[in-house]
C-alpha cells in the first residue's frame, strides 16, 4: 500500500501540468458512458412505445434520440481518446527527458556501479511499462468502473426483478476475469522466459558462427537448439489449455446469461411484470459487462507492473550526485595548466586504497608520462585530474587552486581526454571531430586535421570528411579511430591534455602516423600520458613510475637511466635484446 502511495506521490506531479486536459477527458468519458448506456434504453422505448402500439411519430422521435445519442457518443469518445493519448505521450516525453537529463548529471562512480545495459532498460523498457499504463489505464480507471455501475444500475432501474439474474452472472464473470486471467498472465510470463532462452541461444550461435564452423560444431548445436526449442514447445502445450479455458468460460457465460434472461424474463412476462422491450434491453446489457471488466483487470496488472518500473525510474531521478559542484563554483576564463598533487590518497572502495600518498607538480606546458603495470594507479591518477572522483585526503590543485573550487563544466571545457579505445559516435568523420566543439566550422576541422597530418588520410575515405562511421567506429581501424580522437581533442585547444595511449600494436604505417600526430598534439600543453611506447616516454619532461599506488621513481629519461633503478634496468634489457 505504501508502495502505491509513494509511486503516486512521485508520478502524479507528471500529470499535474495537464490537469485541465484530464478534467475535460473525464467529462467527455462520462458523456460517452451515458450515451452508450442510453442507446439500448432508447431502442427499448422505440419498440415498446413505437413499434408495438404502432405509433409512427413515437418511433420517429425515439429514432431521433438514438441518432442524437450516437452523435454525442461519437464526439465524446473521440475527445476522450484524443486527449488521453496526447497527455499520455507528453507525460512520456517529459519522463524520458528528465531521466536522460538526470543520467547526464550523474557522476562517474554511478556509471561504475551501473552497467550501461541496465540503464538502457530504465529509459526504454521501464518507460514503456508506464506507456502501457498511460495509454490503456488513464481513461480506464474511471470510465470502465462507471460503465459497469451504469450498466448494473440501468438494469436495476429497468426491472429490478430481472436484474437478480446479475447475482449469478457478475460474480462468475469477476471470477473469470480477475482470477483465471491472472493465472494465465503468470503462466505466460514463464513461457516468455523459455522463449527468450531460445532466442539468446540463437543470438549467441550467430555471433559466434565463425567459431562454430571452424570447430565443426554445427550438428551438435542443431541438436541442442532442437532440445531448447522443444522444451519451449512442451511448455507452451501445457499453457494453451489454460488460455482455451478462459475463452471457453467467457463464451459459455455470455450465451448462458442470455438464456437466463430469456427464461427469467419469460417467467416475469407470464406474470405481466415486464415488457418485451425491457427483455431485449437486458439481452444487450448482460453481454456488455465483460469488456469493461476485462479492461479493469488489465489495468490492475499494468498498474502493479508500473509500480515496479516506476520505482526503478524514480531511483535514478533521485540519485544524488556523487561528485557535486560547490555553490558558486569558480568559473575561470582560462587556465594555465599547472597541476599539483600533494600527498593524495584515494580508494574506490573503503579499505582498498589505490593511491597511497602521491605527490608531484607538473608546470604549464610540460609533458608528464605515467608508467607502471596494471593496478599500479595510472588510470586512477588521470581520472582524478578529470575530477571523475574526489580524493580521500591530500590536495589536488590546478593553477594553485583546489580542484573542488572549480565548476566541473568550466574546468573540463579547458581540458581534453583521449581514451585508450577511443569512442567513435555514429555520424560523419567531421561530426566526430567536432564532437567536443560542435560550433566549429569545416575549415577549422580541416585545419586541425592538416596540422596533425591526417587530412590526406581522411580525404582518402570514401566520402572524405562526410564519410559516415558506424557506432564504435566499426568500419575504420583502431589506429584511425585514435587519430580522429586526437583531432577531436586538438580542436578544443585544451590547456590540459589527458591521454591513455593505445597498448595494442597497430600496423607500422599507422603507428608512424600516430606518433607524429601525438607530438603535434602535445606541443605547448600540459599533457598527461599513460605511455606504452618508448618514443613517447623518451620525449617526456617528467616520467612518473608508479608501483602499488606510490611513485617509486621520477625524472626524465636520462635522469632515470642514470638512477640505475627499475626503469633503467628495463631499458638495458631492451637494448641488448
Amino acid at each position, binding site marked *: 500500500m505504501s508502495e502505491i502511495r509513494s509511486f503516486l506521490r512521485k508520478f502524479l506531479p507528471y500529470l499535474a501540468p495537464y490537469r485541465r486536459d484530464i478534467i475535460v477527458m473525464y467529462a467527455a468519458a462520462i458523456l460517452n458512458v451515458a450515451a452508450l448506456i442510453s*442507446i439500448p434504453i432508447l431502442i427499448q422505448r422505440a419498440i415498446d412505445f413505437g*413499434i408495438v402500439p*404502432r405509433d409512427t411519430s413515437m*418511433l420517429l422521435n425515439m*429514432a431521433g434520440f438514438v*441518432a442524437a*445519442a*450516437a452523435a454525442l457518443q*461519437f464526439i465524446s*469518445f473521440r475527445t476522450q*481518446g484524443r486527449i488521453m493519448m496526447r497527455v499520455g505521450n*507528453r507525460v512520456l*516525453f517529459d519522463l*524520458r527527458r528528465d531521466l536522460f537529463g538526470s*543520467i547526464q548529471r550523474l557522476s562517474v562512480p554511478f*556509471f561504475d556501479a551501473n552497467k550501461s545495459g541496465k540503464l538502457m532498460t530504465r529509459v*526504454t523498457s521501464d518507460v514503456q511499462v508506464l506507456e502501457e499504463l498511460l*495509454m490503456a489505464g488513464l481513461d480506464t480507471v474511471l470510465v470502465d468502473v462507471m460503465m459497469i455501475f451504469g450498466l448494473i444500475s440501468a438494469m436495476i432501474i429497468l426491472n429490478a426483478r430481472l436484474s437478480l439474474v446479475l447475482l449469478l452472472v457478475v460474480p462468475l464473470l469477476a471470477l473469470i476475469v480477475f482470477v483465471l486471467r491472472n493465472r494465465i498472465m503468470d503462466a505466460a510470463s514463464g513461457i516468455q522466459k523459455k522463449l527468450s532462452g531460445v532466442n539468446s541461444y*540463437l*543470438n*549467441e550461435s*550467430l555471433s*559466434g558462427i*565463425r567459431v562454430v*564452423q*571452424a*570447430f*565443426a560444431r*554445427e550438428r551438435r*548445436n542443431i541438436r541442442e537448439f*532442437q532440445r531448447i526449442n*522443444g522444451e519451449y*514447445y512442451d511448455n507452451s502445450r501445457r499453457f494453451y489449455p489454460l488460455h*482455451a479455458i478462459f475463452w*471457453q468460460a467467457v463464451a*459459455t*457465460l455470455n*450465451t*448462458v446469461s*442470455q438464456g437466463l434472461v430469456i*427464461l427469467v424474463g*419469460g417467467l416475469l412476462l*407470464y406474470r405481466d411484470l415486464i415488457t418485451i422491450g425491457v427483455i431485449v434491453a437486458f439481452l444487450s446489457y448482460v453481454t456488455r459487462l465483460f469488456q469493461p471488466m476485462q479492461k479493469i483487470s488489465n489495468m490492475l496488472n499494468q498498474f502493479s507492473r508500473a509500480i515496479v518500473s516506476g520505482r526503478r525510474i524514480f531511483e535514478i531521478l533521485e540519485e544524488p550526485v556523487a561528485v557535486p559542484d560547490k555553490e558558486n563554483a569558480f568559473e575561470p576564463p582560462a587556465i594555465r595548466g599547472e597541476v599539483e598533487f600533494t600527498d593524495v590518497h584515494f580508494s574506490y572502495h573503503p579499505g582498498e586504497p589505490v593511491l597511497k600518498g602521491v605527490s608531484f607538480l607538473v608546470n604549464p606546458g610540460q609533458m608528464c608520462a605515467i608508467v607502471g*603495470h*596494471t593496478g599500479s594507479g595510472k588510470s586512477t591518477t588521470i581520472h582524478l585530474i578529470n575530477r*571523475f572522483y574526489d580524493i580521500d585526503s591530500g590536495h589536488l590543485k590546478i593553477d594553485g587552486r583546489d580542484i573542488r573550487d572549480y565548476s566541473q*563544466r568550466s574546468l*573540463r571545457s579547458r581540458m581534453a581526454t583521449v581514451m585508450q579505445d577511443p569512442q567513435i559516435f*555514429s555520424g560523419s568523420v567531421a561530426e566526430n571531430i567536432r564532437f567536443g566543439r560542435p560550433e566549429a566550422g569545416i575549415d577549422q576541422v580541416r585545419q586541425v586535421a592538416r596540422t596533425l597530418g591526417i587530412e590526406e588520410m581522411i580525404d582518402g575515405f570514401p566520402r572524405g570528411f562526410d564519410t559516415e562511421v558506424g*557506432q564504435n567506429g566499426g568500419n575504420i581501424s583502431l589506429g584511425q579511430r585514435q587519430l580522429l580522437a586526437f583531432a577531436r581533442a586538438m580542436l578544443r585547444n585544451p590547456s590540459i591534455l589527458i591521454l591513455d*595511449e593505445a*597498448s*595494442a600494436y597497430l*600496423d607500422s604505417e599507422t*603507428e608512424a602516423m600516430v606518433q607524429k600526430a601525438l607530438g603535434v598534439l602535445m606541443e605547448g600543453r600540459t599533457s598527461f600520458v599513460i*605511455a*606504452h*611506447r618508448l618514443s613517447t616516454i623518451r620525449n617526456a619532461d617528467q616520467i612518473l613510475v608508479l608501483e602499488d599506488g606510490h611513485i617509486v621513481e621520477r625524472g626524465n629519461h636520462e635522469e632515470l637511466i642514470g638512477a640505475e633503478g*627499475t*626503469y633503467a634496468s628495463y631499458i638495458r634489457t631492451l637494448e641488448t635484446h
Partner: protein
Amino acid sequence: MRPFSSIIARYKKEMAIAIAFMVLIDILAYAIPLLIRYVTDEVYPQLGSGGGLEPLFLFGGIIVAAGVVRGGMVHLMIRSFWYLAETVVRDIRNALFEKLQHLPAQFYDTARTGDLMSRVSADVQMLRNFFAFGIEHRIRVALITLTVLALMIWQNWRLALVVYSIIPVILYLVIYFSTRMSRATINKHRRTGDLSSFLQENLYGIRIVKALAMEDRQIEAFADVNQSVKDASTEAADLQARMNPVLILTNTLGSLIIVLYGGWQIVSGTGDMTLGTLLGFMSYLAIIGFPVYILAFNTSTMSLASGATARIHQVLSQSDQRQRDNGHRRDRIRGELAFRSVGFSYPDGGAPVLKDIDFTIEPGERVAIFGLTGSGKSSLISLIPRFYEPDSGIISLDGGPLAEWDLEYLRSRIGMVLQESFLFSMSILDNIAYGRPDACREEIVEAAKAARIHDYIMTLPEGYESTVGEFGLGLSGGQKQRIAIARAILKDPSILILDDCTSSLDSRTEQEIQAELRDLMAGRTTVIIAQRISTLRLADRIIVLRDGRVDHMDSHEALLTKSRLYRSAYQIQSNYGSIGEDVMSGGPA
C-alpha cells in the same frame, strides 16, 4: 505461404479439425438469435394468453445448453489452432537454425546478426500469430458476414439490403485506417529504435561525454530524438483513437436502421415483418460486430505474416555448404599445404583480393604472414578451412585438392585462434571442450595447463564451472585468448591457423602468451598472421603479402636484406618499440 506448404501439408488433419470446430461455433452463434426470435414471436405471446410454461423452459433450456456446447467448442478450437501454430513454428524455427548453422561465411559477411535474429524471433512470431488466430479470423470474417447476410435475406430481404449497405462503408474505413496505422506503427518503431541507439551510444561513451563536458549538448540532441518518438507515437495512437469511435458509430447506425426501417415495416404492415424478426436482426448486428472489429487487426496480422514468410523463405532458400560438391577423403593429415596460382575476390564483386598466390608449406612447418592492413592476409587464411572458395587456382592438402576432403572432417582437423576470441555463455569447461565435446575432464585440464590458464581458473570460486561469455564472468583479453588457445590445443589439430591473435593484446600479455603459442605450434603445420616482429620470429619462414600478391617468402634474416617493407617495419618497431607495461613486468622478452 507457399514455401511452407510442405510443413502445412504435414498438419492437414489438425488444421481441418480446427476449422471444423470453428464452423460449429459459428453455426451455434447463428442459431441463438433464431431461438430468441422464436421465443419472442411464438412463446412470449402465448404466456399471457393462458399457455403453459413448458415451451419457455424448453427453449430457455435449449439456449443455455447451446451456450455450454458453444463454450466447449471454443475451447477445442483455440487448442487446435494454437497447437498447430506452435508445432508449425517449432518446425520452422528448427529448419531456420539448421540452415543458419550451415550457411557459408559469405552469407554472414553481408547479413547482420540483428537482422537474422529478428527473422528467427520476430518473423517466426508473426507466422505463429498467422496460424494461431490469423487463419481463424480471416475465415470467420468471410463466413460470418456471408452467412448473416444469407440469414437476413431469408428473413427479410428489404431490411437485409438496407443494413448491408453500410458494409462497404465499414470496409473502406477499415482499410483506410489499417494502412495508415501500420505505416504509423512502423514509423514509431523506427523512431524508438533511433532513441535506443542514441541512448546506447551515449551510455557507452558517457566518460568521454563527461570528460569533454558535453552533457548539455547531449541533452539537446536527445530532446530532438525524444520529440520525434513523441510525434510518431502520438500519430499512431491518434489513428487508433479515431478508428474506435467510428466503428462503434457504424454499429449504432446499424441498430438505428433496423429499428427505423424494420419498425416502419411493422407499423405499415409491409413485407410480413414481425417483432421477432426485428429482434433477430439486432442480434445479427451484434454478431457482425465481431468481424468488423477484428478486420483491421486481421489485415495487419496477414500482411505482417506474408512479409515474414518472404524474409524467412529468403534465408531457407540460400544454398548452403552441404549442398556443394563435397569430397569424402578422411585420411590422416600430414599437413602439406600447397597454393597453386590462387586468385580470390569477395562474392560481392569487388576487386580481386588475392592474385596468383603460389607457395607450399611443408608438414610441420611454421609460416607467418606479414603485410599492411588490406593486403589480403585474413582472406588468405580463410580459404584453408574453406570458409570461401578461390576463384581460380587450386589449394591442396597432402597432394589432394581441398574439395576432395570431407568438409566436416577437414574442419575438425584444423585449429583456429581468431583475432578476437569469442567465448560462449557456458562454463569454461564447455568452452574449452567446444571443438571436442566428448573430451574427458583430465584432457580439458591438461589443455588448460598447456595454455597456462589452469592456475587462474583454479582461483575462481566455481573453477572450471564458472560461466563466461556475455552474461558471465568478465575476463581480460589475455585470459580469453588463453582459453581460445586451450580450445585449439584440446582439438589436437593437424593444421593450426592463428589469425592475428595477439595484436589486440598489450605487449606484456603478448610476450606472456608467446610461450604457449610456441608449444602449440610444435610439430604442426602452422599459419600465423602477425604484426609484431617478436611474433613473426616464431615462424620458420615469413610470407610478405603486398596488394594481394606474395612479395617474398623467406626467413627473418633474409627478409631484412631483401624486403624493404619488412625492413622499414622492423626499424619503426625498434624506434617506437612499445614498452610501458614491459617496464614493470621485470622479465626480459
